Every structure is written in C-alpha cells, then in structure tokens.
C-alpha cells in the first residue's frame, strides 16, 4: 500500500541533498570542532559556515545564532535564560498566549510555580492575538513576551511584526517560537523586532536533534547548562557537527524554494479544505487565510479523532489529531480548547499537514476515501443525529 504522509508539522523527511551534505561530517570530518588540529578545524569550518547560512536566512548575524539539540531546548533556553537574568533586575512578570507549544506552555507553568506572574493573552476564534492586548498587558516589571509565529496545530500565523514594534518600543524582550515557520514563511528578525527566536531543523527537511536559538546581540541571558566554552559558553557541549551541517543545508534549500513551495502547498491546502467542508458538520479550525501554507485542521462532529486516525492509517494516510486519545493525557488539545471549542469538537479534530512531496493525486485520494470513513464512524456513533431517527 502506498503511504501518503500528511503529518509534516510533526516532522519532515530529511532531504536527500541534506543527507549528502551531512555524510562527510560523519565520516572524514569527524573531528571535535574545539580541537586544535586539522581535523578539528575542518569540523569548525563546517559549523561556522552553517551558522552563517542560518543567520542570513533570518536576517541575523552569525554571532547571534546558538545551536541547540532542538526546538524544545531553544525554547527552554530562552525562557529560563531571560527570566533568570532579569528577575532581580527588572521584575517577574511575563506575557504569553494559551496557544503555545508545550515547550513554552509547560515551561511557563513551571515558572509560575517558581513565583513568576504569567499573563495569558486572549485570542480570537481563529487563534489570533490582538497586538493591542500585548500593549495593554505590558507593565513596568514585564521582562518577556513569548508568542509563537505560527501555531503547530491550527496553523494560525500571528502578527509578529506588529507585536515586535510594541515590545521594542516598550523595552521588553520578545521571544518567538518559530519552529513551524522557519524555512516555510519569510522571517527577518530585524524588521520584526524579535529579540530571541527558536527553530528546529527537522521541521524543514533537516535532521532531528538539532535546532538553534537566535539571541539578539546585547540581550541579557543566563546560561542553563554548565561546561565547556562552546557556543560562547552559553550552550556548552561538543557541537553536533553532522546535525548542524544538515540544518544549514536544509535552510539553504528551503530558502531557495520557499515561495514556489508555499504556493504549491497552499493550492493543495485550499483544495483539501474545500473538499472536507463539503462533508456535513465539519468546521475549519484556525484562520482561513492567515495560516501556514501546509496546514489543514478540521473538526468532524459526532466522531472521535483517534478512530479517524486509525481508519486513515489503515488506508495508508498518516495524519494527526488534537483528541485526548492521542495526546497521552485525558484532556484534548489546549490549543483547540483555548480557541473556544467544546470538548467533543476538540476530540473530533483532524490535522493534515502538507509538505514538499505531496501531490494533487494524494489530496484527491484523501478526499475520495475520507467521506466514507466519516460515514462509517458516524453510523457507529450513539451521538450522531442520523442514528437518532431509527430510535423510536
């Protein structure tokens, strides 16, 4: 059976050109980038070349890029590093949204337990933050605003540049979790007035286990790991040279084809959304236009997300859901609840995220089989109104 991969927001396959670029760093250039000798220095060269490519891709300077082991580490490094550096100097108030990825959401829960005051901004039904609410929430003791660029579940893109203009003017650090947007949506940290920005290579066809945090020069931040002098002492540990090389190559390719890819994905996305909305009692989650080019998220009434995923998986389609049954907890996705969905609607969510290799034929296949999957599960469901008619 042919497998149709529609879970690119979870992770992407490594591009063959990325793998090719990584291989020498796993074989000939095996040196420790901190070593004095030629093999070490060859590795150093690879790391710095990659740093430069990544910096350029977001409008930063190479010295502002710090490699990490992924997006979660970058997020933790930003939140812990800044709050620790400023808590005694300026205050203990931070601002975020209820839509953040767990790497931010749960870190703020922890900081709250440690005595920080966390303001969670309201969002509209599409999950958009109003910049005016950011402005109103800033206080003299506010030390950090952290808002994701685009949401991983519903794909909604936030007005980052507008928020950045406010935080910069008010002198508050602005951290952006851009894990879903780097390599997919244009980013310029200077124009957008971003102070810290997290990214992860495996979301743009790079390898897993490598990411980076952009830290604008001059931002006060305290190191969270203690060890050697790597990454200017802020993130000690021997550099993951193959991973870093792969990340650099991946972003280089992503930039080259960004516009073309976004157009292609958006066309497939809109076709998929329109097709899904033809099924009765299906709603689109997230913003209709201000959304990631590859993101589709719908709620299908009267049925539960995991059973949809299982049915699709048996048909060769890899998808995702915000249902409690797939979250590993008893609660459905906090993102879906925070945009105002009730529990059953959140349980019935289906996320399909497109990527570089998806074709129109694949979308046609999904649209061909999904109505039958929905119909079958609804016929099984005690809450489907179609079943209530029989009951006399």
């Amino acid at each position, binding site marked *: 059976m042919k497998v149709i991969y529609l879970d690119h927001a979870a992770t992407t396959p490594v591009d063959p050109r990325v793998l090719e670029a990584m291989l020498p760093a796993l074989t000939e250039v095996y040196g420790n980038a901190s070593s004095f000798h030629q093999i070490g220095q060859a590795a150093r060269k690879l790391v710095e070349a990659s740093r430069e490519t990544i910096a350029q891709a977001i409008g930063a300077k190479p010295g502002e890029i710090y490699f990490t082991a992924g997006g979660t580490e970058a997020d933790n490094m930003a939140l812990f590093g800044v709050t620790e550096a400023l808590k005694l100097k300026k205050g203990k108030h931070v601002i975020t949204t209820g839509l953040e990825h767990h790497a931010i959401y749960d870190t703020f829960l922890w900081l709250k337990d440690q005595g920080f005051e966390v303001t969670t901004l309201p969002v509209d039904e599409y999950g958009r933050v109003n910049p005016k609410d950011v402005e109103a929430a800033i206080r003299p003791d506010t030390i950090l605003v952290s808002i994701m660029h685009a949401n991983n579940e519903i794909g909604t893109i936030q007005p980052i540049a507008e928020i950045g203009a406010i935080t910069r003017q008010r002198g508050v650090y602005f951290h952006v979790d851009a894990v879903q947007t780097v390599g997919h949506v244009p980013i310029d940290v200077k124009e957008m007035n971003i102070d810290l920005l997290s990214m992860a290579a495996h979301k743009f066809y790079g390898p897993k286990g490598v990411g980076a945090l952009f830290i604008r020069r001059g931002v006060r931040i305290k190191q969270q790991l203690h060890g050697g002098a790597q990454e200017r002492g802020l993130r000690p540990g021997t550099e993951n040279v193959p991973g870093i090389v792969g990340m650099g190559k991946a972003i280089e390719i992503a930039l080259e084809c960004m516009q073309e890819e976004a157009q292609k994905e958006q066309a497939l996305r809109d076709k998929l959304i329109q097709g899904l909305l033809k099924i009765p009692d299906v709603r689109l989650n997230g913003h209709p236009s201000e959304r990631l080019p590859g993101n589709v998220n719908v709620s299908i009434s*009267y*049925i*539960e997300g*995991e*059973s949809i995923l*299982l049915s699709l998986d*048996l048909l060769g389609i890899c998808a995702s859901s915000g*249902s*409690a*049954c*797939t979250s*590993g907890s*008893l609660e*459905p996705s906090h993102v879906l609840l925070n945009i105002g969905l*009730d*529990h*059953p609607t959140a*349980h019935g969510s289906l996320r399909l995220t497109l990527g570089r290799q998806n074709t129109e034929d694949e979308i046609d296949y999904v649209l061909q089989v999904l109505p039958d999957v929905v119909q079958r599960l609804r*016929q*099984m*469901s*005690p*809450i489907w109104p179609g*079943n209530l008619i*029989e*009951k*006399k």
Partner: protein
Amino acid sequence: MQYTEKVLDHFQKPRNMGQIPNASGVGEVGNATCGDIMRIYLSIENDIIMDVKFQTYGCGAAVATTSMLTELVKGKTLEEALHITNADVAKELGGLPPVKMHCSNLAADALKVAIEDYRNQQNQKGE
C-alpha cells in the same frame, strides 16, 4: 498506536453494530466530554441474551471492546453475562495498550447498566 490484530479486526469489522428497537434493556457509559460513549442494546427472553447490539463514540479500542463484548455475551444467561469483566474483554482482544485499559475499556460496565435497566423494567411491570 500499537493495537493487536484482533483489535484492528474488530475496529474494521465491528460485530453486532447498530440498535435494537424496543430493546429489553439499554445501557450507556461514558460521555462526549471525555471522548468515549458506549451503548449496549439487549434483547432478552427467559433471562437469556437472544440478541445484542452496540453503538460507540470513541477511539479504536473503545469500538473494539464493545464489539468483542457483544460476541462474548450473545446466547449467555444474564448471570453468566454479569460475570464478564472489562479485563476479560481486553484479554479476548489479545490485550490493549496500557493507556487504553481504563478510559476505553468500559464495555462490560455498559452491559451491566443494560441488564440493570432490563431488571428495573421487569420489576416495574411486576408491581
């Protein structure tokens, strides 16, 4: 999710799915908020389960457990049926992933509610 072949088989080809009009007893457990509802319909004659149907809103395990339960109880006396536990249902399916053992393995509970419903109706008729 790691499901056994048997779970997948019951999910894809559920046994006894549907409703029984004028059922002798109906039992339901769960709610839409937690993401699982299992409903069992019984047709009972002389304390024997002559027919059984189910409807389930929930995950793959929820569907498979209710489907399996209907197979286990068909033709059984009420006393025999009441001895079946949620653990028995999971065992018949070749096991369930640990996270599914509690939230999605409630079919035997729904059966008990259905039998209780039948007995209540009988008592009311007797009065």
